[in-house]
């Protein structure tokens, strides 16, 4: 178990290193020049100011280190990273690390809440759907799932917002960003992600119900609740992968919902930086996201091993015959 964890950690570092390379290169390959965006387009300046503009641009480039070769820039970035410094924003001059740290908790809180709602909805309705397979209850759940899955996220967000904030007045959008404002965006994200989890849980539960150990548990006279528990633990593994994948997409992709509910998350910050070609911010943001994804998957591997004994025990342990 610990050996597995150690190996996974090593793999994680290698992945992280590859990610820095890819992030760094991709950002620089994309069209657009941050200095130009910062100073305004040179065509707008009068011809006499051209020289001054070029001087200012060159000075800024030198100051930001953008005039150096790609390799030097990369090593400089890595050098800073090792000291846990994500650099400073070209645009605002503030430390990227601090900016991300200020925004990440809001996004993390939203994602966690949304994930909880997704998981509860997914497992509960998935199991119910499997138990009622082919009956009206199952059909109703599946219908709602299809409807939810095929509605764009912003529509769901806007509808919920208009129902709860405008019609019912149960939600105050302009209040302080806290727990009282969290539930509606979390519910929205939860509803968006739930259908795929429900479908997956249902399919897995149905497959497990067909297994012999379920028949065997029934034949030992165990009640239905018990037997469902037997099946659930086995059906859980693929569902957990799905939940983890959904968490990564939640953290990195909640931009739309964050802006609808004006939630002070990291999504908007990242989007603005991308438009401004703010290299250090984009790099920092991407790297933090990659680390989070790696971390989540590491957790999934550990949970897997905890749930399924076959993963970290080998066969030989008790395989010798004892006649």
């Amino acid at each position, binding site marked *: 178990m610990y050996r597995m964890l150690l190996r996974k950690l090593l793999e994680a570092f290698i992945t992280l290193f590859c990610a820095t390379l890819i992030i760094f290169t991709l950002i620089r390959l994309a069209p657009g020049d941050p200095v130009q965006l910062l100073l305004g387009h040179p065509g707008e300046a009068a011809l006499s100011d051209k020289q001054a503009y070029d001087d200012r641009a060159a000075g800024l480039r030198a100051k930001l280190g953008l005039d150096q070769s790609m390799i030097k820039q990369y090593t400089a970035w890595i050098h800073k990273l090792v000291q846990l410094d994500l650099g400073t924003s070209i645009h605002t001059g503030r430390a990227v690390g601090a900016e991300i740290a200020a925004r990440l908790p809001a996004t993390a809180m939203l994602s966690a809440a949304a994930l909880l709602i997704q998981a509860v909805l997914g497992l509960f309705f998935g199991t119910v759907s499997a138990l009622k397979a082919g009956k009206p209850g199952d059909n109703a759940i599946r219908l709602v799932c299809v409807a939810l899955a095929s509605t764009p996220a912003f529509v769901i967000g806007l509808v919920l917002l208009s129902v709860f904030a405008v019609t019912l007045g149960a939600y105050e959008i302009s209040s302080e960003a806290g727990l009282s404002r969290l539930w509606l965006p979390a519910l929205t994200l939860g509803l968006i992600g739930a259908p795929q989890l429900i479908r997956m849980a249902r399919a897995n539960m149905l497959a497990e*119900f067909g297994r012999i150990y379920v028949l065997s548990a029934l034949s030992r*006279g165990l*009640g239905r609740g018990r037997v469902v528990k037997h099946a659930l633990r086995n059906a859980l593994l693929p569902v957990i992968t799905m939940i983890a994948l959904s968490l990564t997409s939640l953290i990195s992709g909640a931009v739309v919902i964050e802006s609808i509910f004006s939630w002070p998350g990291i999504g908007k910050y990242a989007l603005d930086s991308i438009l401004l070609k703010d290299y250090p911010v984009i790099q920092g943001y991407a790297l933090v996201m990659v680390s989070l994804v790696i971390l989540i998957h590491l957790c999934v591997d550990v949970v897997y091993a905890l749930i399924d004994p076959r993963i970290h025990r080998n066969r030989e342990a008790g395989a010798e015959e004892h006649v």
Partner: protein
Amino acid sequence: MFAARYFGEDTFIMVKKELETMLQITNLQVAYRQGRQSVRVLDNLSLELRQGEILALLGESGSGKSTIAKAVTGLLPPSAHIGGGTLHIGSTLRVDMDMAAGKGRGKGRGKGRGKGKGIQWEGIRGRGIAMLFQDAQQALNPVMKIGAHFRESLLYHRLASPDEVKPISIRLLSQLGFLDGERILECYPFQLSGGMCQRVCLALALCLKPAVLIADEPTSALDTVSQKEVLDLLKITQKELGLAVLLITHDIAVANAVSDRVIVLNKGVIEEEGDTRAVFSKPRAAYTRQLLSSRSQIAKPSRERESSHAGEPLLEIIGLEKTFDGKKRVLHDVNLALNRKEILGILGGSGCGKSTLARCITGLEYPERGHVMYRGADISRLRGKGKRGLCKHIQMVFQDARASLNPGRTAMQLVQEPLQYMHIGNKGERETLARFYLHEVGITGDLLSRRPPQLSTGQCQRIAIARALVLRPEVLICDEAVSALDMSVQAQILALLQRLHKQFGFSILMISHDIRVLRSFCHHIAVMNHGSFSEVKRASALLHESKQSYTQLLLRCAGDMEEGLY
């Protein structure tokens, strides 16, 4: 307290009333819905199981024997319909089966079975009727320790306090031949062999002190040695506890070895019923005679079959070694030679490495050391094109015929596929070839356009054989090719293979755990144990000449079970 009463060695007292009926089934009718049709599986079936006896329910697949087991425990799938019947369990409990056909019948999958206004199955299952399943490893929850299974059963039925669970489980396990019960309780099902799992399942069934035990093909998935072991234990514990056992099997030898009475079932109708010895020595029904003769046909020792030993061997295995996960040694210094037109049998229990050997020969696995020489060239490490070319020369037939065929293709498509893959002939020629080989294996007429789900297992195996032969291979490897088949179908497939062998002259490597099959079919038999061959003998001589203790053990197990059969 419970423990002392039921599981104490000396305090165990059971009043033996020899003739008390423990399970009585009267006029049971079950039908399955298939599309719009309804296929009747059991027609007014009645049987009686008495205390302290083992009643064998003998029948081939499709006879409805498993349906009986599922019907009396309320585990029938939703497509089943119970037309009527009555069930008496012990002397007190009476169940009207058509009540189950009403509201409670087959609700949903898994959960609803037995709920509703119908029968309270939860009260019957486990304590009234316990069950053993064919694949014991699958019958235990893969993510739960063995100990957790015992704990759950005992506590759920309030048969023990939490402190008593462990001693009770260990004592039961020791009754079933586990000397280290404590360790077993800490194991997961996948860490135990099939035979061990079946013994655990038996202990798990017995811990609830059931009135009746239904064992549905409990040893069919096991090799000869563990089969004997499990059956012996079943018999011993049954006699000790005075348990009533309904043993469902397709294997005459199993019924013969342990049962007191036997019921021969054919297409949902009882053909013959009576004392086991009497039924097998003087069968009255024609169907029973047919079953017995197909068995003796298989078991008949081979005569006048000698292979030519001229020239160098067609296939030669030299010093083959294979390990899994870097530590588990599966094959260890395996040496073997297969001559042209020879039929060579490989005999061994499960886990001895015989399937891995087959996979090494066909290039599905790569050995660490050693060579597989085919016509003087090493084929064990071929990759890419060379490996694909090998398919023309060496073909394999697998145990699970149905699973080895793509369920979406028709028989004709399945047999043509290897030809397409190898770019042999044009469309018309391929069709002619496929039709020819399918005709040779007895698949004709409208069977040609059917898909595996619409065919019987025997027919599927015929198609698999045709698919293997259509490339005209020189070596055919049959990996337990008849083990999953009914006795009469087994005899047919073996006869078919023999005829094809004579006609086309290929060599056969026949892998099996069943000494009967090999003795009748092969020229030579190589006995495999723990990853290497302990001896190679002429098939007819194996019985008398072998001095190897392992071979003797295999022979003894098979012999014990058949005693008095012929």
